[in-house]
């Protein structure tokens, strides 16, 4: 890109053209879905990129010579997807679920990242560009996740957004199976006690301004500097979790999963203003015991939880099938377009990333994905992915990666 930009600059100087000549790139598509607050859709539309950032979004404009224009007639440009619940950062080498202790607020996933691993490459070719790579749910506090992009770059420093992007808590089901402090018989009440115990210790350290190497990051959660993503399942677990982390501690907590009949707690979550990051199970046949198939995404969205978002829990669901979470949510009553927001701007807002990713707005990262059609239709596929203005994947006939 550096080379290209310098060519453009030289051309610009020669022509004495307007500042627009400094653009790296102009992307022109049949449809540009901005995902901004006004839900602007430009058809046709154009995105201009300079130094990896977006400098213009709107209807196609005249450009001076020397600007690289990429034209996808019929293509749909959509912001790169943001998945807040993923486990592919180690690329199949394990290392996502240290289960020696029940609470691990001192562990960090960033040390286990294999940048540009195969799973990340495929995620990129499916338009997933920002990921929160987190520890598993084998313990009550798995540790701190890493925020990164799916660039085709093997250098960790080039792909990472934040070494410590937020905390992972698991407050239902899975941690009941592990040994830990309480071993066999560890149930929800004791898990709650374990979590409150460590949270109170972090609050104490915060109050007394005491340095504690094992609690420094947890202190940032308690002071709302960092968000916390919480693995939880059915409705009673969801409410229990929200009461603790939202009402009692006032953290930036995000309910993850909220599966089975978890949607029944949606009106209460909406009232409290607790965001939900739903999936990978987005439907319920039986737990809700009402004789129908329940489209749980539609229920959460209808209840009005703030910034409803989707996840894959990859590799529980393949990372590249993130779009399909939206499709199936739409099948079962959700609004197609809202489900696109649930994979772009909503998760970005939930995790405080909305100044960088999740929508096409001037000044944000140029994470642009061009699909052959509606990204939520499985028959569409990705034509091109730019991350921060750099081309990371390009579809060629017979050579597609997903």
């Amino acid at each position, binding site marked *: 890109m550096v080379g290209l930009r310098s060519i453009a600059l030289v051309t610009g100087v020669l022509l004495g053209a307007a500042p627009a000549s400094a653009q790296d790139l102009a992307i022109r598509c049949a449809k540009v879905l901005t995902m901004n607050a006004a839900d602007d859709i430009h058809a046709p539309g154009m995105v201009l990129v300079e130094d990896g950032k977006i400098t213009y979004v709107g209807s196609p404009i005249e450009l001076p010579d020397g600007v690289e224009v990429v034209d996808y007639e019929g293509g749909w440009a959509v912001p790169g997807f943001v998945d807040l619940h993923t486990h592919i950062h180690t690329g199949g080498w394990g290392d996502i679920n240290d289960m020696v202790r029940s609470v691990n607020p001192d562990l960090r996933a960033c040390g286990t990242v294999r940048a540009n691993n*195969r799973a990340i490459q*495929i995620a990129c070719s499916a338009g997933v560009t920002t990921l929160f790579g987190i520890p598993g749910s084998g313990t009550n506090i798995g540790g701190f996740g890493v925020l990164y992009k799916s660039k085709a770059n093997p250098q960790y420093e080039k792909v990472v957004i934040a070494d410590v992007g937020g905390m992972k808590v698991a407050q239902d089901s899975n941690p009941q199976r592990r040994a830990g402090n309480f071993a066999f018989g560890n149930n929800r009440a004791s898990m709650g006690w374990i979590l409150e115990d460590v949270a109170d210790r972090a609050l104490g350290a915060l109050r007394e301004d005491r340095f504690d190497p094992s609690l420094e990051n947890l202190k940032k959660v308690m002071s709302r500097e960092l968000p916390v993503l919480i693995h939880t399942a059915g409705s009673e677990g969801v409410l229990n979790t929200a009461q603790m982390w939202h009402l009692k501690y006032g953290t930036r907590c995000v309910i993850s999963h909220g599966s089975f009949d978890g949607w029944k707690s949606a009106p209460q979550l909406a009232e409290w203003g607790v965001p939900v990051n739903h999936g990978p199970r987005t439907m319920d*046949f039986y737990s809700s015991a009402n*004789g*129908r*198939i329940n*489209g749980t995404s539609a229920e959460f969205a209808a209840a009005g939880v703030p910034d409803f978002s989707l996840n894959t829990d990859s590799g529980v669901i393949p990372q590249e099938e993130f779009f*399909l979470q939206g*499709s*199936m949510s*739409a*099948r*079962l*009553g959700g609004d*197609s377009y809202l489900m696109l927001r649930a994979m772009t701007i909503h998760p970005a807002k939930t995790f405080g990333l909305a100044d960088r990713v999740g929508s096409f707005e001037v000044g944000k990262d140029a994470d642009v994905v061009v699909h052959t059609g509606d990204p*939520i*239709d*499985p*028959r*569409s*596929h990705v034509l091109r992915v730019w991350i921060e203005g750099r081309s990371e994947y390009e579809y060629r006939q*017979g*050579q*597609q*990666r*997903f």
Partner: protein
Amino acid sequence: MNDRRSHRSPRSSEKSESGTAWLRGVLMGAVAACGLAAAASAGDGDLPDGGTFAIKTDKALLCELRGTQTVDHAVLLVEDGRIAAIGPESEVELPEGCEVLDVGASWLMPGMIDLHSHVGGLRGYNDMVFQLNPGLRVSATVRPGNANLARPLAAGITTILYIPGSGTNIGGQGILMKTYEGAFDDINVRNPGSLKVAQGDNPKRWAYGMQRTLMNHHIRHSMRQGKAYAQRWEAHERGDAPTPERHINLDVYRDLLAEEIGISTHTQYYQVVLSTLRILRMEFGFPTFIDHGSFDSWRLGEVAAEIGVPAILGPREVMWPTNPLRFPQDGRAEGSAWGFQKTGVELVGFNTDAGVLPQEELPLQSAMGVRYGFDNSNMAAVRGITIVPAIVCGQGDDLGSLEVGKLADLVVITGDPSDPRSSVELVWVGGKLVYEQPEGVRLW
């Protein structure tokens, strides 16, 4: 019927409000317009159920193997459980007093068919005491309308080939059956429906040290016995030989030799599919289809096409370039359907291996095939779950497309079946109404 234009339906914009309630209103209107007592034959007076009736739709997917795929503003006439007429509204003559259901903007299509399913009963379909079980019949485990068939029926899947598992080299005989709840004789389409052979990896687990050369030997051994047995019966039936001794373990080979059924073959890599083609089809001449056909097996597509072996693909229908030593593919993902299609196999279909994948997600298998490069410009994805499996299981005269004379296995769906956002509203089997989407309640 002269007044059939007098009761056009509300359009889709009106129906989204209240599920299928609009259908009732329309039909009642139709009956009233006809001025007949037709309501008496339609159960609660709701929807046509048996007898003679017609369905009007903005779009009918015919799913003929070749030729016309869609008819806009179509009418389909059902008489005695079969399709009596299908065509543009202007060309179909309806009998006097015929009950007409106008489904408006919803699409009409044939019932979908899955040739690799394990949900026709509740367990017990994978006997693994012996490695070769050509005499075992999975029909012994069928439970019509069991809980695992409710969602498939609500997804428009009307026919499945329920087959034994792949724990042994010859698992036994499958049964071709319907998914709705009925008496065994009603839901049984054909028993046996196929012979299940597994040449891939699963039967290796049958014993420590079991590898593919011994498995192939096993299969050939049974087939040689079976084919000789079937030929003795053929000679006897011609009057050329005395009555052979009966072996129930080999009877299924008589069906195979007569080409009344085929072999559903669990086969997945290049070298395994090569064994399938060479042993089952070339050496013994039995009707055979590739079931699974995953990984790099599409590279045998030209051979398969030449000797007439179809490919029913799934549930793994894409190969990732994870092991470049075993599968050199220049870093790309390869779709099985893409591969078999481009190497000239005409009969390419899809399966779920339910419950490996949920039975109701059969249309999604075809949609993902398209994503991975399968050319869908002429609706091949829909044919791959309708007419292709119908032909492959020998039911091409009865099932799989909207053609005159075929059974009225009909599905009314809100849009393209390959789009997961489409949902099924109504299902008939043999002209009998077997599913109506409950009002405001999605079952799938």
